[in-house]
């Protein structure tokens, strides 16, 4: 078993890799963590993680600039059904479109657009930055053993845009920020977290371990 974290120039992946290594070690899973920008490695990956920080269009451009990467992802994730996790903008790239500054196209795995968060309470600040709890929309193996709800564990968010899936059935969990904001999406072998599991201490390490064990 191994997991490949895709490096496409979107920031530092060292701490993400360390968090995956630690989650694997604590869960006693033999799961090497590979950070790679090579589509050939992605095409053979057992598990795939797509991180992403910054602007949507930049991340999409970054992904496109690695020749063969989108094709390798489409094949390995969509056709071969390997477990996939998107993180932050990596999660947003699973959507049909991103509407940040300009319209950019995502991978269209989860139908819907990524739109600006507009909290009903104007006193709420944007970006939504900091620790927030999750509300479970439907049970999912990635949240096994993780307390959710107002008294549950916290996840670290930092974002101004959020994915609104066309099919509400694709929403696994939301968080409350002047109304529900999509926190986790998923379908079949796909899952995406708007927050940063690699920065989310106890909740993050559990979620990562659950992903490494997940057999969709």
């Amino acid at each position, binding site marked *: 078993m191994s997991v490949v974290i895709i490096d496409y120039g979107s*920031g530092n992946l060292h701490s993400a890799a360390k968090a995956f290594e630690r989650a694997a070690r604590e869960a006693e899973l033999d799961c090497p963590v590979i950070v790679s920008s090579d589509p050939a490695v992605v095409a053979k990956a057992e598990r795939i993680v797509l991180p992403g920080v910054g602007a949507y269009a930049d991340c999409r451009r970054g992904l496109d600039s690695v020749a063969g990467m989108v094709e390798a992802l489409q094949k390995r994730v969509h056709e071969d059904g390997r477990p996939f996790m998107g993180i932050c903008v990596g999660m947003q790239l699973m959507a049909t479109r991103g509407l940040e500054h300009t319209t950019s196209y995502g991978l269209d795995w989860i139908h819907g657009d990524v739109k600006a968060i507009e909290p009903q309470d104007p006193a709420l*600040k944007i970006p939504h930055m900091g*620790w927030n709890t999750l509300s479970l929309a439907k049970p999912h193996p990635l949240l096994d053993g993780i307390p959710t709800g107002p008294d549950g564990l916290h996840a670290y968010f930092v974002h101004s845009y959020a994915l609104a899936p066309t099919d509400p059935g694709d929403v696994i969990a939301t968080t409350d920020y002047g109304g529900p904001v999509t926190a986790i999406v998923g379908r079949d072998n796909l899952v995406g977290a708007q927050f940063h599991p690699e920065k989310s201490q106890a909740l993050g390490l559990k979620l990562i371990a659950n992903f490494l064990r997940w057999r969709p």
Partner: protein
Amino acid sequence: MLKVRLIPCLDVKDGRVVKGVQFLDLVDAGDPVEAAKAYDAAGADELCFLDITASHEARGILLDVVRRTAEACFMPLTVGGGVRTVEDIRNLLLAGADKVSINTAAVKNPDFVREASEKFGNQCIVVAIDAKKVSGEGEGPRWEIFTHGGRNPTGIDAIAFARQVTELGAGELLVTSMDRDGTKGGYDLALVRAIADAVSVPVIASGGVGNLDHLVDGVSKGHASAVLAASIFHFGTHTISEAKGYMAKAGLRMRLDEPAHP
């Protein structure tokens, strides 16, 4: 519900913590990585490194400290001090910082904020605003931006500057009162509130914390989204969990999760 963030700040000089973290049973109280790990385990919501190294040549040491901290701590890390160029920001982010705070460079050239946030996203660009009250008795309150640790006045109005850098793309503002810094007399609540109410991005209150009520006031009276403190934690006056418990009792929404570390 989003929680109020409590952020300990470590002053780092030439790769060492200035004044040291004295309450924890650390093998090396001057090692920023050890201090960071201890705060991570104690349940801090984020960590801030302020690099006060005088020479620009010593940046490599800081990058190494950031790299080792990011490997050991799974919590957000903000690094500031001496950030002058896009290359400085890139290096810090690649070393593992989640956010970079810009101070003098933003005052000298506000467009640097736009350049940085366009390149790296506004979520990782913090503008640190150091301000002093300049209005006299009986006048309406007015604060001015100061640089170089509060020594150099700039003539720039702090509230106008806060609005300007937010429009240019700052994702967060770290507001320090140079009148209060080091006094233990509490934040300049009027300053923090004036800025927090003027901008749409989160504001971190900083400068002057001497007791736990000051932290509470920063949020309830200063309207800050996060509160930063240094010496009350480093010298063991209070622990992180004590502070968070106190703030929760005062009615603030705090994250009280069991830490991931044993």
